[in-house]
């Protein structure tokens, strides 16, 4: 492979070498079905337990509270649809924010078709949900509050503890999508007071296609996948053994390296921002820089459209994401940036830069160089500009 400068760690992370090595045995010699009672089946089962212990340790849970899923998306679907299924006779009202991940929003849309009533809370310009809004939205028939821990586009960290406290007072279940938060901010499920929490391996240097749902001891929600008795009868389907082992290892590393990881990300991110500020005029930062994922930056470059930036960067081996309509098969501008009130024309020119463990200062220097040129080139082509007062 050519040299890449990967600045899209929030989309997915490379699998760390140690994680890969942890997976290899389960793709070669240790193939026993964890459901089988003979020895090679039981050692597969032990591997699952070890992975649970590691993930539980990272978030302050117990291994029995961790259930593996096929993705962060499945964890979100299960938490939301499973809660609805088990509580719909008690009430049908769910509270969420308007800038959740689509795994949450589309699960809720599905439930709306089944008869659920959903309140979508506004988000501040800084990218924060106001706990007061949550409180005011609660009704007699509210059965679930779901607010993400860290937003995937702008990285803002939500006041989970405050919200969960409100939920607890009213005896309403509280779910949080922690897919972007895991490994990047400190999580203690008991301190935070969450009942359900979604996680995904491929955001913490683990493999794709393996996620987990934390279900607090004592909380009972309907199963999502029905069939065999895997995962303590909680989630049917033969377990993704290699993926589970990899997720566990990734969690172990995340816990061990937490401080240096966060420090490194923040350093890279802040250095990048400083460099960009020095060289490129007319951009805005989307979302508050204060309560933010240490490796996330989301910038709106005025007068140009983001896909062009992405393509020019890709030509030079640099990967980033756009918040633009144009980059996707969908033509809708980012619902996240809309929710925090970024003007639509700026949404089109917004780029998410996300930094990770393998990002170097040289990467940043080179990326800013290329970015500077790309923005300059596109602005020259553009039909809008400061002078034209777009």
């Amino acid at each position, binding site marked *: 492979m050519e040299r890449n400068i990967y600045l899209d760690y*929030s*989309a*997915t992370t490379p699998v760390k070498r140690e994680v890969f090595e942890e997976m290899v045995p389960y793709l070669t010699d240790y193939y026993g079905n964890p459901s089988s009672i003979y020895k090679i089946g039981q050692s597969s089962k032990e591997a699952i337990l070890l992975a649970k212990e590691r993930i539980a340790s990272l978030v302050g849970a117990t291994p029995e509270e961790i259930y593996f899923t096929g993705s962060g998306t499945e964890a979100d679907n299960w938490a939301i649809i499973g809660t609805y299924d088990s509580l719909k006779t008690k009430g049908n009202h769910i509270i969420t924010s308007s800038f959740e991940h*689509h795994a949450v*929003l*589309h699960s809720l*849309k599905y439930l709306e078709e089944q008869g659920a009533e959903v309140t979508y809370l506004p988000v501040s310009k800084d990218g924060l949900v106001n706990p007061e809004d949550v409180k005011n939205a609660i009704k007699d028939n509210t059965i679930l509050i779901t607010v993400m821990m860290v937003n*995937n*586009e702008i990285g803002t960290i939500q006041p989970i503890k405050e919200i969960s406290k409100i939920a607890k007072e009213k005896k309403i279940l509280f779910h949080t999508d922690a*897919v*972007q938060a895991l490994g990047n901010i400190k999580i203690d499920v008991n301190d935070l007071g969450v009942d359900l929490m979604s996680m995904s391996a491929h*955001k913490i240097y683990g493999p794709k296609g393996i996620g987990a749902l934390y279900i607090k001891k004592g909380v009972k929600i309907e199963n999502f996948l029905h069939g065999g008795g895997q995962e303590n009868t909680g989630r049917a389907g033969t377990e993704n053994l290699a993926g589970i082992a990899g997720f566990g290892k990734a969690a172990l590393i995340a816990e061990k390296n937490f401080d240096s990881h966060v420090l490194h990300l923040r350093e890279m991110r802040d250095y990048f921002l400083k460099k960009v500020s020095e060289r490129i005029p007319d951009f805005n930062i989307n979302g508050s820089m204060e309560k933010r994922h240490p490796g996330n930056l989301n910038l709106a470059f005025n*007068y*140009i*459209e*983001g*896909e*062009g930036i992405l*393509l*020019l960067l890709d*030509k030079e081996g640099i990967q980033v*994401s*756009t918040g*633009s*309509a*144009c*980059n*996707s*098969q*969908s*033509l*809708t*501008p980012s*619902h996240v940036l809309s929710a925090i009130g970024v*003007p*639509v*024309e700026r949404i*089109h020119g917004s780029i*998410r830069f996300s930094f990770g463990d393998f990002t170097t200062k040289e990467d940043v220097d080179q990326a800013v160089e290329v970015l500077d040129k790309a923005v300059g080139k596109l602005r*020259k*082509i*553009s*039909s*809008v500009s400061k002078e034209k007062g*777009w």
Partner: protein
Amino acid sequence: MPIYNDIVMEHFMNPRNVGELENPDGIGTYGSPVCGDMMQITIKVVDEVIVDAKFKTFGCGSAIASSSMATEMIIGKTIDEALAITNKEIVSELGGLPAVKIHCSVLADHAIKNAIFDYANKQVKTYKGLEGYDPDEDADEQDIMEETGCTGPSCRG
């Protein structure tokens, strides 16, 4: 299988006829930054022939490539010939565009017509190809603004 073919990428990377003509005979704009694309075309006309054209585009890769290709296509053509160009022809000259990006070629097509419309107005001329033409018609607004939510493969993490 990159999202754009080589022709589109070449026109995006090295767009032809970028800029604004001084004292153009016709100027046309189409789209808006809010919708994600806006194109401006200026043309120079001598004896009913478009002798020069330049564009400026705010928009995605395919919008820029379509603009570049469109200006190339009209230079040297008569007004009537230029008016006959359809967005399908622009797409075909580009060797194809992803389905959801077809609207970018419509944009270029409209910008050209608007530039000719402006020229016709200034010269007080009428063209068959402009009969019933409304320069402000938002042919693709619906495509762009539809609040369909994330249904494409780029629902980014």
